[in-house]
């Protein structure tokens, strides 16, 4: 081994996020400017948005079977996922805690696309609690 790193995901590519939505059976709604939520309470993945932003977004994700939606808001060079995780909204059940399944699918798309451009061989396998990608020369 040489080194180990842990990374906190930032959504930088809308194209890879769209692809991740397709993989999970979610509907990416380009240009939708608001998302459905409870109305008085909501959760932000990053947790630092001000009240004027509530319910507003640049794009949205419709999750089949869920009452609420995920908002996608551009913040500088990256995007944040905003959503209400109250259980009646049904989102956490579909996209995981802190949208983990969506972040996972996004990361896989992002890594595969760039790794192949760089000429790596990519192998994907299921491991306990997640997915492993192995890049080799």
């Amino acid at each position, binding site marked *: *081994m*040489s*080194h*180990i*790193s*842990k*990374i*906190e*995901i*930032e959504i*930088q590519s809308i194209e890879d996020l769209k692809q991740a939505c397709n993989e999970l059976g979610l509907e990416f709604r380009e240009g939708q400017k608001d998302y459905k939520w409870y109305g008085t309470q909501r959760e932000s993945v990053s947790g630092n948005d001000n009240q004027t932003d509530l319910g507003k977004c640049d794009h949205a994700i419709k999750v089949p079977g869920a009452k609420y939606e995920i908002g996608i808001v551009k913040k500088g060079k*990256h995007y944040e996922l905003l959503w209400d995780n109250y259980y009646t909204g049904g989102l956490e059940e579909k996209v*995981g*805690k*802190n*949208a*983990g*399944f*969506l*972040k*996972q699918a996004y*990361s*896989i798309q*992002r*890594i595969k696309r*760039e790794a192949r451009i*760089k000429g*790596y061989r990519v192998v994907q396998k299921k*491991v306990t*609690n*997640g*997915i*492993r*990608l*192995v*890049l*080799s*020369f």
Partner: protein
Amino acid sequence: MKEISIDISDDGEVRIETKGFKGKACLLESKFLKDLLGKQTFQELTPAYYVTQKQDTKKYLNLCG
């Protein structure tokens, strides 16, 4: 064999591990992944990191005195 192994957990956490690299090559080779995905929150260098790429040097024994 040089490999980069990336574990992406169901809660969205990403862990990158490089194998078979010596010295700083591992950091350079995996940098593109960190740039692609977001912010690095943890890094641990393993013993192989401190192994420098050795260059073969020929040693001659002076037989002629």
